[in-house]
């Protein structure tokens, strides 16, 4: 068994309380971090090969390097805790079970980049996470880890929890910034990037929860140590959320570069009895679906791209032979339509039309022209919008049609879906908008 980092405290009773966290060695690396300057810290972050854990996988050290160095400008830290990519449930564990880890990471980040204010942007539904974070922040203030002159080192850093109110699009970093400003979460054009013009029009660093939670370990053990627990360009252990038709769904820590097969068999307990793996989604619903032949793909941004999909959040959904790929693609189209912020026509309208046509095929009302129609529609979405939300539907739908084209054609030809229904009592599959 590898040593645990990110999930080290998950099994410890009340590790969300400051005294327990300190007993476990928490906050003890702060003096070491405070003895390092901006360049030294960014150098360690780059060496660590830590990639943004929210799904985009941008190298964290490089992102930090984009932040302006002027000391007289107000700069903000925003932690993206708007976890909502279907299939993803890892950040929640950090916030609920080990909130001080996140706070300690925030303090170090603030020190490194001269940030005076931080907001943890949590989706409003996660009330336990919000409560645990609020209590932990209060405890950290009382102990002098937050507030004026932290540990007497001259750092003034305030940290707050910002509760969102239900909008998947706020997980997109500029949508999140709009939401933090009190507005509808409609993503902004980039550039300018948040590092130049972010929240309240000030330079802003936006990082995912798991990314920031890794910072204390990287500064404690050094960037090289972190990078050694991974593969080329993908450093460090990571939290993998496994779900679907498997025996032991849950969140597990393992190194970057572990194969999907090992995650499924060693941690997920394999497929359930009577379930054969039909397909899996490696990193949340916006990733292309993969077949069992890709089980030996390594969890990394480049390796999964080579396998024809993407790493995303690293939370894997496994599906068995009872899963209808037409219905699943319709369900995902419904999700992306429902969550479209509405400002770009191709996404707002295109996701809705994709849903209607896919749902018609699933209901046995598809025509032979519909598959070409869908291809045409999603081509109109891809690349024609401000943010990646529209593409997040295009990528999976294309992959379902490419890998399970026969299933789509059979639905059209036989005018029915051959798979067991999700709803048992009613004849029609209904998804209320």
């Amino acid at each position: 068994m590898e040593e645990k980092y990110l999930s080290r405290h998950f099994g410890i009773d009340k590790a969300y309380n400051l005294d327990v966290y300190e007993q476990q060695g928490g906050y003890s690396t702060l003096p070491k971090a405070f003895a390092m300057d901006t360049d030294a810290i960014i150098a360690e972050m780059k060496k660590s090969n830590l990639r943004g854990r929210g799904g985009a996988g941008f190298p964290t050290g490089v992102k930090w390097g984009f932040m302006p160095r002027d000391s007289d400008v107000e700069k903000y830290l925003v932690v993206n805790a708007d976890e909502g990519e279907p299939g993803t449930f890892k950040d929640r564990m950090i916030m609920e079970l080990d909130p001080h880890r996140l706070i300690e990471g925030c303090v170090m980040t603030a020190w490194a980049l001269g940030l005076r204010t931080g907001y943890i942007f949590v989706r409003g539904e996660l009330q336990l996470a919000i409560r645990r974070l609020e209590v932990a922040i209060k405890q950290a203030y009382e102990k002098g880890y937050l507030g004026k002159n932290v540990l007497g080192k001259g750092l003034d850093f305030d940290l707050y929890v910002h509760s969102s109110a239900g909008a998947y699009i706020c997980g997109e970093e500029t949508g999140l910034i709009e939401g933090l400003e009190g507005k509808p979460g409609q993503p902004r054009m980039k550039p300018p990037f948040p590092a130049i013009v972010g929240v309240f029009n000030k330079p802003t660093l936006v990082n995912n929860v798991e990314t920031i939670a890794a910072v204390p370990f990287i500064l404690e053990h050094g960037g090289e140590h972190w990078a050694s627990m991974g593969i080329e360009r993908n450093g460090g252990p990571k939290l993998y959320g496994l779900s679907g038709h498997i025996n032991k769904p849950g969140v597990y820590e393992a190194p970057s570069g572990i194969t999907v097969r090992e995650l499924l068999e060693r941690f997920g307990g394999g497929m359930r009895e009577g379930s054969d793996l039909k397909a899996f989604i490696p990193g949340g619903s916006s990733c292309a679906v993969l077949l069992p032949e890709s089980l030996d793909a390594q969890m990394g941004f480049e390796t999964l791209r080579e396998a024809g999909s993407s790493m995303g959040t690293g939370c894997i959904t496994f599906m068995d032979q009872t899963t209808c790929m037409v219905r699943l693609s319709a369900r995902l189209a419904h999700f992306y339509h429902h969550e479209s912020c509405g400002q770009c026509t191709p996404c707002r309208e295109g996701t809705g039309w994709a849903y209607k046509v896919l749902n018609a095929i699933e209901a046995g009302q598809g025509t032979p022209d519909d598959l070409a129609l869908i291809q045409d529609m999603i081509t109109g979405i891809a690349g024609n919008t401000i943010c990646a939300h529209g593409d997040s539907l295009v990528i999976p739908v294309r992959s379902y049609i490419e890998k399970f084209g026969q299933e789509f054609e059979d639905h059209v030809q036989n005018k029915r879906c051959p798979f067991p229904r999700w709803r048992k009592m009613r004849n029609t599959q209904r998804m209320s908008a």
Partner: protein
Amino acid sequence: MALEFSDKSEDKFNEIVARYPDTHAALLPVLLLAQSEFGWVSVEVMDYVATRLNLNPAKVLSTATFYTMYNKQPVGKCHIQVCTTLSCALNRGYELLELFEDRLEINVGETTHDYGYTLSEVECLAACGTAPMFQVTWSDGEIEYFEDIDPDKIDGVLEKLNARLSDLPDTRRMH
């Protein structure tokens, strides 16, 4: 009657506003606070929030209608929100939704006559490892997750929910 926060909510309001460099940024959490105080987000509530934050009411309206957690009409004391996205769809989430419809004798999207329950279908709630699951928003503003639910034991689940109803305010009468 003019709306007014209770003393407790007033304290919370001041604490929230103090976190941000401008009042607009306080809008999301203040609207949630107002919803837990006044039951639902009516135009009257939006106006009150606009006044308190010195914002144009149109700005409050555009935000209040964008986010799904604000109820623009009264809901039941117990607002059941069943997740049916990806992992929940694969793990009997729709059956769970259907059983709630059956037992509560309402369709998804509807509220029982006594405003005890509202039933909604919602998108991914980041609990995929414990599917199927549902979230409850109680009329006092508390949110609770119910995870790893066995749809065959729905009646026991409903009994537990029922037990809490009598202590909760009716959202129609909260303002």
